[in-house]
């Protein structure tokens, strides 16, 4: 049997065509509410990519989405739907805050690995309970991880209001982290190379960690025995059993890695940007991670690209709401259309393209 399409078409052409369709439909919606789609696109592009300041925000958001997207993708590979990225990232924030506030860190280079470890451990721990329930009791991971999002929010609310709030402070947040934990921004990192980057944008060194995480996840999934077992289990449970792969071990391993990745997001938003832990620091990034993983086909490289796209949409949409009469909800519509076309309606684009390629091939002798 021959493949209907060359691989590049499958990986590049189909997502691209889906995107074009999603944007075309979005343009129609913008027209329908009486706004100018061309102006809107121009505004989004300049707001998200037009300056190093704009890039700084886009990459900051993208960094969040890479972590949560990878988290969902790793679980997906074991056919586990981890909807708990939100809660795991919240707990990751708690880990970061505890580490940053507990010691008088002399330099960020020491604080960063410790905080990253704390974020990963707390995120993984929060994923471990639903994972254990799934692996040993068969409690559905979708239900339990959703519930753990609410529990995480409640726990954080309690801790920030009653325990970690500095005396006399009004808002439910921890104290500012000490200066020794402040991460270098892209401005600081690029300045030695003579590249001018906006000082005000929140993108920071965590972006590089995110890229490293993509590589690491790829290595784990496609170059290690554990990844081999995770993928085999995800594709076929009876086959995994036949091969002597232990389901409990795989479910736990995949979910712990997933939770750790979601938790790592806190290094970006809590340590890198806010420099203290606030309520609702995650801002829905855990859920956007699901869309990112879907669009990225659960592959680290795809997740990276999809996270950049969603970073662009997130930042461009914020600019759109700020400077035009197009409501902020419009950007949710656009994101939804992107997810709809790249995820759910994949076949709608795929079938005609496959037919086209077949026709082309038949045309050739």
């Amino acid at each position: 049997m021959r493949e209907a399409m060359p691989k590049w078409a499958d990986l590049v052409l189909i997502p691209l065509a889906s995107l074009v369709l999603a944007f075309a439909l979005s343009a129609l919606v913008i027209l329908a509410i009486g706004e100018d789609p061309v102006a809107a696109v121009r505004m989004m592009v300049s707001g998200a990519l037009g300056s190093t300041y704009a890039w700084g925000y886009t990459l900051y958001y993208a960094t969040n989405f890479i972590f949560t997207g990878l988290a969902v993708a790793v679980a997906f590979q074991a056919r586990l739907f981890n909807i708990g990225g939100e809660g795991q990232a919240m707990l990751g924030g708690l880990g970061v805050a505890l580490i940053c506030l507990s010691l008088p860190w002399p330099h960020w280079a020491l604080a960063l690995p410790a905080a990253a470890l704390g974020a990963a451990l707390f995120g993984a721990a929060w994923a471990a309970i639903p994972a254990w329930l799934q692996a040993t009791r068969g409690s559905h991971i979708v239900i339990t991880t959703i519930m753990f999002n609410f529990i995480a929010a409640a726990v954080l609310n309690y801790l920030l209001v009653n325990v970690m709030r500095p005396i006399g402070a009004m808002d439910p947040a921890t104290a500012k982290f000490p200066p020794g934990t402040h991460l270098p921004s892209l401005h600081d990192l690029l300045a030695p190379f003579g590249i001018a980057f906006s000082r005000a944008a929140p993108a920071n060194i965590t972006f590089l960690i995110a890229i490293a995480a993509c590589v690491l996840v790829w290595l784990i999934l496609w170059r290690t025995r554990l990844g081999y077992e995770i993928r085999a289990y995800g594709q076929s449970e009876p086959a995994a059993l036949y091969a002597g792969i232990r389901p409990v071990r795989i479910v736990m391993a995949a979910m712990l890695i997933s939770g750790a990745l979601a938790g790592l997001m806190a290094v970006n938003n809590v340590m890198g940007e806010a420099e203290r832990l606030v309520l609702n620091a995650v801002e829905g990034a855990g859920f956007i991670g699901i869309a990112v993983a879907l669009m990225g086909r659960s592959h680290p490289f795809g997740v990276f690209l999809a996270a950049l796209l969603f970073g662009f949409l997130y930042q461009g949409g914020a600019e759109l709401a700020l400077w035009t009469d197009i409501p902020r909800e419009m950007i949710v519509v656009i994101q939804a259309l992107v997810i709809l076309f790249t995820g759910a309606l994949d076949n709608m684009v795929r079938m005609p393209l496959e037919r086209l390629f077949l026709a082309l091939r038949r045309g050739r002798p």
Partner: protein
Amino acid sequence: MAGAAGGQRVPAIELRGISKAFGPVQANRDISLTVMPGTIHGIVGENGAGKSTLMSILYGFYKADAGEIRIAGRPIQIPDSQAAIRAGIGMVFQHFKLVEPFTVLENVILGVEDGRLLRPSLARARGELKRLAADYELHVDPDARIEDLGVGMKQRVEILKALYRQADILILDEPTGVLTPAEADHLFRILENLRSQGKTIILITHKLREIMAITDTVSVMRRGQMVATVATAQTSPGELAELMVGRKVLLHLDKKPAAPGRTVLAVENLRVTDIDGVERLRGVSLTVRAGEILGIAGVAGNGQSQLLGVLGGTLPASGIVRIEGQAIDLSARNAGQARRAAGIAHVPEDRQREGLVMEFLAWENMIFGYHHDPACQRNRALMDNAAIRAMTAERMERFDVRPPDPDLQARSFSGGNQQKIVLAREIERNPALLIVGQPTRGVDIGAIEFIHQRLIALRDAGAAILLVSVELDEILSLSDRIAVMFDGRIMGERRPEETDEKDLGLMMAGMRGKAA
């Protein structure tokens, strides 16, 4: 509709120039077929030859790209199965389409109720069923629940369903795959009855013996084309096999007598109870020695799968199993790795569900289950994909896997080539014991020959082989000893030269067979 134009002159079914393509695959190419009323017409062909596609077109599941269908002389369109039923065509699928908790009667009227209230339909169906039973010797208790019926009975219900819908043409797709020889004989008597009453029957099968036994005419399909249609009386199994494959095939295996050595596998009083509390293995004991093949015959579902599961390490059990004298731990649910370490290689019954990860590439599948082997690692952390790929390419060459490309997904190989990948993986380990389930199910004749030769070669190299198969031909030609399983027990043991299908068939049906 029956005999619309009268007499024997007009064919019951006439297909002219039927073609159907799925993407790049031409499943049917310019097929013409004529079946006269009151005959049994066989259609044989390897897997993927296009038999099922052709019948699906006739039953309205697919629309032909080109061609014409005539039923009783009249050209008709069959856009869906409802239209097929109206045209008098009934189909009995390989996998029954019955509602298990419903009674026979309820299943028979399903979809053709007379009105909103069921009572009148049920009453009418009861009368009709009685008449059909009398006419065709199709006796089934109309009030029995489907789930309580055996496979043979369920099949009868499917035939009754078709007849109740006034089918004049009955298509049966691999009807004997799940039947004991006795049940198959009974089915053939029913078919002969139907034929004598003027019904037209199309029988799709890959068992040449059945074709020879019951059909009047037979068509052979190969690679989407109809390569021959002949009167059954004027052909032979050898000729049909050759037509199917397109070259000469050895139907009989040449093998040397076995030279059994030490006892490799010893099973004593093996018991397995499933989650519903049903005992699936009820004290099985057997031994397999080095250099011999023990064949387990039996109708599917009599505990063979559980026996393979226990030996392969996916099912916990009680009892004693010794490999080369060493007792193995039967309590664990997940002992696949331990079994492999003990020297057991396992070719599972369902290669697509268990034996392979269909989305994995060939080279990923070539180490499946043996991925803990140090040879698979480049260093402590990373696997040595390049070495695995090279090893796979070499094995694919040796086992004649086509195409020999390690970077293809398992699902893009044909059934026979998928099975060769599994066999290559398991046989190349030089196991002390190979357990094999249905080694040639869904495999084309050419590959069957190859697989059988490999199994014999492994035996001659000194391995013990436990073979489970529902194909009696396969059991008889491969085994050095034959054990028959029925209802979780071993009914008896025979040597192939001192038994035959009838004797084995009796044991498969739970009787002791002829005095041993």
